[in-house]
Every structure is written in C-alpha cells, then in structure tokens.
C-alpha cells in the first residue's frame, strides 16, 4: 500500500494543534467535581475499609499478636496478619539484573517476623468504615522485641552494626564502580584539583491525593478489579497477577484520575498489595486510602545522598575530569520492581553530563537501613548529579578566577558536536547547551544583575547569582528497566477509531496524573487525523480498554505515548481517506482531512464530512463497491530504539538574597531555559517546568524527612515537613530552545523533570555567591537558616 502521507506530515499539518496551549479536555470534568479518583468510586455497602497497625519501632521482632479486642470492636470485619496473607501471595525481591550485584530480601504484603522501619504496616484491620478500622487498630496488641536500628548510612557497613537481613550477610545493597578515560593522567595534567562534599537530605513527593487502592475480587467471575491511583496500570496488572497467582487477563487495573504522582505512585507498596490480598481473602471490595501521617512514613522517600566530588581543571578553565564517591541509605529493602539502585546509578551515569571532558571515575555505595524505603521520585538522581556537577564547576571557576558563565561557555559541549557520547559512553542525539546558556544569560540580563549584586554588597545587602546547566533523561527505551528483567513496558500503544458520526475515539497507554496528558494526547490525535479536539474522546488508565503501555514515568508519556497516538492517527487518516476516495471516486492521494472534513488536498475545497464517511461505512456498506471493506480503527505502538534515552538539556539561574543576621534566604527570581524538542503545548510545558522547579526548591531549602538516631521520623506531618508554599517562591521565567529528536515524527522529548533537576544546583550556587564575601560555604541541603547562621559563625 502506498503511503499517502509525506515526511514532516505531522508538524507541518494545516490546522495543527501542536505548539498551541489548548485547554485541557478534562478540566471541566474536574471543575464540576466529576473526577474519578479512587475514593470517588462506589462499590456498594459491602466495601471494607482497611487501616493498618504500623510499627512504632524502626527495627523490631514481631512477637505474639493479640487481636481479640480488635476483632470484637464495633464494625470490624477482619483483623489479618502477615502469616495469613502469606498463604495467598508470593513475596517479591526488588532487583534488576543490569544493576549487577544489587541484592535485596523477599518482601511480603505484611512482614512475617520483623518490622524494619517505623511506619511499616504489620497488621491489617478491615472495618465498615475507616474510622471504625482506626478505632480497632488501637486495640491490637503486639509483643515487640525491639532490635538495634541501623540509621546512619555512614556506619551501616561497619562490622559492629546490626545486619538487617541475616540472609544477605551484610547491609550492602549494591556497589557500582565506574572508570572511564585515565583519571590519574588527568589529575597529573590539571593545574587545580578541587574537592567538595555535597549532602542531599531525604525528602519525598507530597501528592495532593494520597496513595489509594480499591480492590474488588469477584470469585464468581474469577476476576480482580482494582481501582488504583498509580502511574502504570499495565505494570500493576502484571505485578498483581504474578504475586497473587492469577492470570493476567483476570486482573483489571483502572487508574482514571490521579491527583499527582511525581514517581511516588509507580512502586509496589506492601500495604497496597495487602489490600488486594484482603479482598481476595474476604471476597469483598476492600479500600485503603493512605492518610497524611502514614503517607510520610510509607510513601517512598528519595535522594539521601552524600557525594564527595572532585574536579580537575587547567588554568585556562578547561575541565579535564570529574570524580565522585556517593553513599546512599535506601531503607530496609530495595523497592520493587524498579529497585532502589537507580538513583545512585543515575548519579554515576550523568554526573558531568553537560560538559565535554574525557576522564571520569565514580563509586556509588547503596546500603540498607531501618528507615522508610527510598526509590524513584521526580528527576531520579538528577538534582544530585546536577548540584554536584555545578557545584564543582563553580569551584573550578573560583580556582581559576573565572566567571561562572565563562567557565561554562568554555566547557559545555558545542551545539554542533552531535551526535556524540558522554564521558560515560551515553549517546547524545541533539542538544543545545551553548544556545540555552546564551539565552539564559540574556533573559536574566546577567551583566546587569551582577552589577546590581555588587552595588548592593557595598550597602550590606547580600545577593547571589547561581547558574546550573543540566541534562535530563527522557523517553527511556527498554534499556532502562526491561533489559534488567523488569516487566515494565518502555513501549506505548494507542488505538484510534472513527465512529459513525465522524468523531474519533482515542485509547492510550499514557496516563493522566494531573499533568495534562489528556490535553497533549488530544492535540496530537487531532492534528494527526485532522479533526478539532472537541471531536475526540480520550480514554486512559484502564487495562481493559487501552493498548498495552508503560504509563507515566521518566518523562516519557508525551514523547512515547504521544508518538504512538501520532502513528495511530496517521493510520486512521489513511483508512478514512481510502474509504472517502472510494465514495468520491477520487484518488486518495488527492484528499486530506482538515477540520473534520475530507477536503481536496490542493485547494482545500470540502468534499465529504467525516460523519458522512462514518454513516456510509457503518450503515450503508451495500453502496460501496464489492471487495472494498472499510477499516476505521487503527492501533500503533512506539518505542525508541536508536537511542536508549532522548536526553534533553537546559540551564537554570537563581537570584536570591541572604539575610546574614537571621540566616533566612529570600528567592528573588528564577529562570529556566529548556530544550525538550517539539513543544506540544507551551502552557503545559511551562507548568511542568515551574512545578518541577518548585519541587527542586523544596529539596534545596525546606523539605527533609528528619529522623532521629533510633529511626523515628520526627516531622511526619504537614505542619513540620515543610513543602514549599507560594509566598516563599520567586517568579519562574521559562524559555525554550527547540532541538527535536529525529527518532520520532513528533520530535518531542520529555520535560517533566527538568525543573527539579536544575533548581537545587542553581540555588546552591546562588547562595554561595551571596556568601562569597564571608568565609562561608554551604553544600548540605536543605539550606536552613540555622545552617546559614552556623556557616557565618553567628551561632
């Protein structure tokens, strides 16, 4: 069959919706209060509500469990222990074969013998309401034998430290060593070698909608239906089928609306699997909605890295080498199925990323500890590798007496050097570091800002400017997880169908998390077929009604899910044109679809409406020639193959003021120039960048899961865990450079994590610039007023 559609068929379409800020199709639904979040789902009066007895200790053996009083409490349906649940499921182990040597222990829905972090769910109570379940939770008595808690990553491997999982032999989860080029030769050649240690606190992603799951096992049909606010319905389907010994087609996972996820909702949480197990045991629907307090103790945490960094630089500012040694404590298990080694792996892979240098050495050590589990949260590893790199680049600038912008200009990869490979051997397809930096300096009026900073300094006002260039991993291929054996789909699919009235139904594997995915999908679908977005119906987040796909993670949904939609839309357009050509007795090549009407390609003259095409194909096929069967539905899948990741790049800047008497930092301004290739929806892209920046600023200045030495989290509530709030935030100005990926027709890379990646680095550099007149440097995030005052020697 000839291809009816030319090259650049998508981006040069007449009436294109790509590049426009179209409204979100799901916004009115949400504004009307008609969202379908898990807690909105009604399953009738038989629903049991789960609450959990959570371990008050960081490490303790579970002795006898006295649940008699709880079972007798009003409204209680069942009290279930780990041993009972273990009868009906198989445990999981969070390892990936390509993270060689990564080990972890089997994890059950509820632990059998030992609780390994404070807040771990230990006993489940199911009652007629959540309040009743909480009442009964208070009545469960457990004989705890408290064990020594391993909390400090620095001493987790000491021989004197308790081993959390005896079967593993020690507390080492994983170690990776990497050596590229000849670092010793680079050190010998360098004029300066600068060392600095950076610390990144544990923090977490605080979603507006907490984790929630409603499981309904129907023994009559042998069917498990699970409403679950996760990012990857097909992944969850597979995990539930595997660990509850079901056939995959007997498990349906629905994730319609999700109130924010940020990577928090992409993991296998034991309490969620316990909820599914409870439904299977009790043969009735069971719902679990995490409350804020348990969210802080059980939603994954992230970062928690101590990185010693080293940079080798010549007098002329040429950077020769980077070296890092990173240590991270990940909690008592490696999270399943993505593992808790990826954050450290990313740091090893990506440090130094924007710069042209040849010599690199890295060590990453990942240890177990008795704190909540750590795993992938927005911009996995990126804020760490970026702050380490950019901190070291600023250190190199100081060592060589060079302006921070100048040393970056000298060392950033040239825009005409692509395709090329990073020092670590990762391929870069098409980036724009130099142009992005130039645009950034222009947007912030760098020289004028420096002059203002210098003038104010003489008046005792201490302001600082911080720059940060970055790369971001997006559109991951199967090289990210699949290659390591995880059943996590890197490909995505889309099915599009013309209905009898000429409207288009779109089912996509990409999922809506509140980020506006439905809008992006609608723009691509509308453009690919040639219809206005209001003629589309988008279906997401249902394993029974969407093609197999990976969902939302690693900034992939638009670039990969969107491309699948583009290809399905292109196929559907060809199908429609063939049918229309038959009806019009015209060559299909001479036709196109624009504005929902089949038109003459050359003149744009209207020929036949899509409603008419639908009517004839579905109701009057007898009027079509013998031997012509219309097909008005197309499914296409897409996965990147040439490149393991579509790297994006950009540059951020922060301008801030330090009150040197109080230690308070005021963020005055923030800029981000970002290159995500094709910008499908400028408003949504900027929202992603700004939202990402805010989470990056959170890590830099406020957010920290504070633990004491017994493994108790001290601020597990919204009053004491400081999420960034609007009053403290600066304006965030976004700009774009467009270097599309050539791998897809859409050319879109991801943008979800760029803001989070660069913001902490920019703030750290700005803070240290502001403190330059003093003998004070801070590299230990979050930068609290107390740390600032200590660095200044005021307290």
């Amino acid at each position, binding site marked *: 069959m000839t291809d009816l559609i030319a090259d650049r068929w998508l981006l040069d379409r007449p009436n294109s919706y790509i590049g426009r800020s179209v409204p979100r199709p799901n916004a009115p639904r949400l504004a009307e209060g008609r969202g379908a979040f898990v807690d909105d789902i009604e399953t009738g009066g038989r629903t049991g509500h789960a609450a959990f007895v959570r371990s008050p200790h960081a490490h303790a053996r579970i002795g006898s469990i006295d649940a008699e009083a709880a079972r007798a409490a009003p409204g209680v349906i069942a009290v279930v222990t780990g041993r009972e649940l273990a009868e009906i499921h198989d445990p999981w182990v969070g390892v990936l074969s390509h993270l060689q040597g990564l080990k972890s222990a089997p994890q059950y829905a509820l632990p059998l013998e030992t609780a390994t972090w404070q807040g771990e769910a230990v006993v489940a109570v199911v009652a007629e*309401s*959540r*309040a009743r379940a*909480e*009442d009964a939770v*208070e009545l469960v008595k457990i004989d705890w034998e408290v064990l020594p808690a391993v909390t400090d990553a620095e001493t987790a491997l000491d021989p004197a430290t308790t081993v959390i999982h005896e079967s593993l032999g020690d507390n080492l989860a994983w170690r990776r060593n990497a050596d590229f080029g000849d670092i010793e030769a680079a050190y010998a050649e360098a004029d300066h070698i600068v060392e600095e240690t950076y610390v990144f606190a544990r923090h977490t992603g605080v979603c507006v909608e907490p984790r929630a799951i409603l499981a309904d096992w129907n023994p009559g049909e042998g069917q498990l239906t699970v409403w679950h606010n996760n990012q990857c319905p097909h992944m969850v389907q597979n995990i539930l089928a595997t660990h509850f010994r079901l056939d995959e087609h007997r498990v349906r996972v629905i994730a319609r609306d999700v109130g924010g996820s940020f990577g928090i909702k992409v993991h296998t949480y034991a309490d969620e699997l316990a909820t599914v197990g409870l439904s299977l045991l009790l043969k009735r629907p069971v719902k679990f909605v995490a*409350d*804020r*307090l348990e969210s802080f103790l059980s939603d994954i945490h992230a970062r928690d890295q101590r990185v010693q960094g080293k940079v080798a630089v010549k007098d002329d500012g040429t950077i020769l080498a980077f070296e890092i040694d990173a240590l991270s404590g990940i909690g008592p298990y490696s999270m399943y199925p993505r593992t808790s080694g990826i954050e450290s792996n990313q740091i090893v892979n990506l440090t130094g990323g924007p710069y042209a240098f040849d010599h690199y050495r890295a060590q990453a050590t990942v240890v177990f500890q008795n704190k909540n589990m750590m795993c992938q949260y927005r911009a996995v590893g990126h804020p760490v590798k970026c702050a380490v790199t950019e901190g070291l680049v600023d250190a190199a600038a100081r060592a060589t007496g060079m302006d921070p912008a100048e040393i970056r200009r000298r060392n950033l990869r040239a825009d005409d050097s692509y395709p090329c490979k990073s020092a670590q051997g990762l391929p870069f397809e098409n980036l724009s570091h130099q142009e992005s930096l130039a645009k950034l300096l222009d947007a912030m009026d760098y020289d004028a800002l420096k002059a203002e900073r210098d003038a104010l300094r003489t008046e005792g006002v201490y302001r600082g400017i911080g720059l940060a260039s970055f790369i971001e991993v997006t559109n991951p291929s199967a090289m990210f997880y699949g290659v390591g054996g995880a059943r996590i789909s890197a490909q995505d699919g889309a099915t599009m169908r013309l209905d009898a009235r000429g409207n288009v139904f779109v089912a996509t594997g990409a999922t809506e998390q509140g980020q506006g995915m439905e809008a992006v999908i609608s723009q691509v679908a509308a453009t690919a077929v040639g219809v206005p977005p209001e003629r589309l119906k988008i279906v997401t987040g249902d394993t029974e009604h969407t093609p197999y796909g990976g969902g939302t993670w690693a900034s992939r949904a638009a670039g990969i899910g969107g491309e699948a939609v583009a290809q399905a839309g292109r196929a559907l357009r060809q199908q429609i044109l063939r049918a229309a050509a038959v009806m019009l007795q015209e060559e299909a090549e001479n036709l196109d679809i624009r504005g929902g009407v089949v038109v003459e390609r050359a003149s744009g003259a209207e020929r036949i409406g899509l409603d008419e095409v639908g009517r004839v194909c579905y109701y009057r096929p007898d009027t079509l020639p013998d031997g012509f069967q219309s097909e008005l539905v197309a499914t296409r899948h897409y996965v990147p193959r040439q490149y393991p990741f579509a790297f994006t790049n950009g540059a951020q800047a922060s301008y801030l003021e330090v009150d040197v*008497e*109080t*230690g*308070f930092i005021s963020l005055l301004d923030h800029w981000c120039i970002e290159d995500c290739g094709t910008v499908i929806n400028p408003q949504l892209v900027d929202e992603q960048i700004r939202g990402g920046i805010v989470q990056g600023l959170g890590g830099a200045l*406020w957010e920290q899961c*504070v633990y004491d030495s017994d493994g108790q989290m*001290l*601020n597990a*509530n919204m*009053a*004491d865990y*400081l999420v*960034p*709030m609007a*009053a*403290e935030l600066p304006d965030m100005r976004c700009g774009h450079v467009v270097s599309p990926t050539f791998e897809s027709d859409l050319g879109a890379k991801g943008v979800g994590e760029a803001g989070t990646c660069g913001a902490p680095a920019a703030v750290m550099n700005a803070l240290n610039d502001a403190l330059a007149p003093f003998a004070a440097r801070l590299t230990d995030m979050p930068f*609290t*007023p*107390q740390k600032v*005052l200590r660095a200044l020697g*005021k*307290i």
Partner: protein
Amino acid sequence: MKPAPFAYVRPASLEDAIAALDEHGEDSRILAGGQSLMATLNMRLSAPEILVDIGRVPDLAGIEETDAGLRIGAMTRHAEVEASDLVASRAPLIASAMPHIAHPAVRNCGTFGGSIALADPAAELPACAVALGARMTIAGKGGTRTVDADAFFRGLYETALEPGEVLTAVEVPGIGAGWKSGFMELARRHGDYAMIGLAAHVEVQDGRFGQGRLVFFGVGERPVCAVRSAALLDGESWSDALGDRIADALKEELDPSEDLNADAPMRRHLAGVLARRVLAPLAA
C-alpha cells in the same frame, strides 16, 4: 486520621454551654473555630467524649470599644480582627500580628479566643496579650471572673482556665500617650507558627524609651516577658550600642527551647536581631 468517636452539642446560650461542660467535666472540650482542635482529634492526640460547640452562643463574637479600651469577643474570627479599623487604631500591635497567623482560610475559621485559650507557645496573640496587659474574661458555673494576661498563661498549653470554664472575651486596655508597639516574627514559611517572634509595647518620649515590655514567643513554654532586658531601655535613646547591650542581655535572660528549626543558641541570637529591628524604628 479519623477522630475517635465523640458526641457533639451546640448550645444556644452561655448557660447551656457551661452546663454541658460541667456535666461532662474533663471529658468535654470546647469547640470554637476548630482549626487546632480538629487536627488534634484527627491525629488522635486527644479523644474527648463530647465537643461543646460555642459557635451559636450569642454575644461571644464581635469587637467593641469600652471605657477601658477594647473588648474582643472570644468567638471573633481572626479575619474579622485583621480587618477591623477599631483594632488597627486602638490596638495596632494586634493588627500587625494578625497577618502572621496562619493563612487566610484558617483565619476565616480560627478565633481570637481559641488562640488565647489554646496558648500555643509560638502563637502571636498570647504574646500580644501579655505585652498589652490584656485581661481575660472567663465565665463558669460560679459566675464570671477576669484574669490578667500575665497570670493567664501558665505553661505549655496551660492557662488559668479551669475545666468547665469558657473564655468569653479579651479586654485590651487603651494605649497610654507616647506608647508605641512593634511586632516581628521569623517563620520558615509564611503562616507557620513562629520560630521566634517579638511583640513590643514601649513608652517613647522625644526619642527616649521609658517603660516597656518585650514579649517573646517561640522561646519557651509560654510568652516570655524579657523584663531585665527591657529595663535597659529606660531613659535611653536608640543606638547600636544599646542594641548590642539588649542583645547581650537577652542571651542571658532567655532560656529558649529547641526544635527541628532552631536550637537554643540560634533563638538567643535571633532574639537580639528581632529586638534591634523592632526597637530601632520605634525610637525614630
């Protein structure tokens, strides 16, 4: 985060409220704006058997001028106090504290009396009450009594209120000629309880300080009146040297607690910074 079961009544008169409280004794709790109480119930930090909602009790809300000064009804919402011209002119210290209390949504529900009765050590209004020498009007089974702010705040969340008593109003005395006030607090995020704050109410004549009160919050179990440090002001005009003396004196006088945001040395240091920043403009 669901509260333990509790009963609820909403009496229509003060007498009924007091009777309900009396009947249930220690197991009852007054519900005002609910902005603090509901959170503690939801977190199961407390589990009273019955809540006595005083939201429908007449005459508990409102701000009026009296012979003695200003009367602020206990059920007056923070938002109303914040917007009040009377408060702005008669008790500017309170007016300047209001925007620092939580966020607009909380201020729409939270009450003036609730803040005073709760006596959070980092709260603004108890410190303002002490600085201004306010008097608390309290009703109970035995009738009505008044307690001076100094005697009202006894310790951590502890006040002179006895079980069964209702705080009905706060009387703020009129401001004497030449008295000025200043307010400042430091919080990691706007609307959070203060890391440390200062409510100052001082006499200033011709650029010289006289009597005065420097009341810090967020530094101890209750509002802390730094008497010895404030005494250094008497008869002095502002100078950096005076600021230094006061900062040094505060380091001696205050014995602050520590929390996740600030240790004791930090609070001592910040007390001096606040004193300088609040007092310098008052003398100008």
